């Protein structure tokens, strides 16, 4: 069942709502990294599918084409894809640690 939750004080109104399948992991990152996660949310809400790749925000490649990744900081990643309909545009499917260093 879909339910809406609220931030403790004032919510940011972006262009899109952000939905998530990994609610606990998202909240854990928000608790541990409030500043970077706020920036992440704003980017996902306002510019979820940028046309150019950037260091911090890019579309994954290979078998993961169609998934986007936002680098919250050096140790955390959020991955998401386009939702199935007009209601759910941004659907986060991973919020957690970065893979061992590949850069």
């Amino acid at each position, binding site marked *: *069942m*879909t*339910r*809406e*939750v*609220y*931030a*403790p*004080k*004032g*919510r*940011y109104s972006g262009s899109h*709502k*952000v*939905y*998530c*399948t990994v*609610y606990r992991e*998202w*909240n854990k990152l*928000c*608790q541990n990294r*409030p*500043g970077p*996660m*706020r920036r*992440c*949310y*704003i980017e996902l809400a306002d510019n979820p599918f940028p046309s*150019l*790749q*950037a*260091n911090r*925000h*890019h*579309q*994954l*490649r*290979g*078998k*993961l084409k169609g*998934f986007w*990744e936002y*680098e919250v900081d050096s140790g955390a*990643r959020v*991955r998401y894809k386009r939702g*199935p309909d007009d209601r*759910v545009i941004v*659907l*986060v*499917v*991973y919020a957690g640690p*970065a*893979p*061992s260093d*590949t*850069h």
Partner: protein
Amino acid sequence: MARAIAGKRILVPTSAARGRASGRSADAPWGPTEIQRDYRTLLDRAKDVPQEVLDSDGELLVIQTKGVAEFQRRLQAQVAETARFLATYNEHREIPPSEWAMQTAYPWLAAFSGDEVEEFASELVGDTFDAAQRGTLEHLEGNLRAWASTAGVYGQPDAMRALLSPVDLEGIIEVLPPSEGQVRAAQA
């Protein structure tokens, strides 16, 4: 620069458009004496276009912004990296990437199939060319990071399965960011 005042266009010279005090043409190299007399014009022009300076010993120098010099240095390094990759790739393209990827600047290519590396090679060449034309490496570096991140996920079979498994839309929840208050509290 033209400025419109009461319907009239009045030409106001900017520092870059201002003529050189020596009267030399804009393309002529600056000389040491001319720099001493008119260094302000030289520096202002160098912010727009690199300026050549002919030293008294005959050596030709260039004054340009640090941003331009830095971009050119990084682009040169990237072109060398791209060329090195292509040489290795062309030599080994029939062999699985895991056997030769370590010889390139992109060892994480070992995670990909031959077809995926072919796609990577095509993008790398296009992105390098594009970076030189557009004067920014941002997209190229972002795409390299995207490939590297993808390789990282390939290395985590559980994460890979989780990403590719179907989503139960009944279970999704709208999430919100930390509030500004939470951000401030964390910074305090």
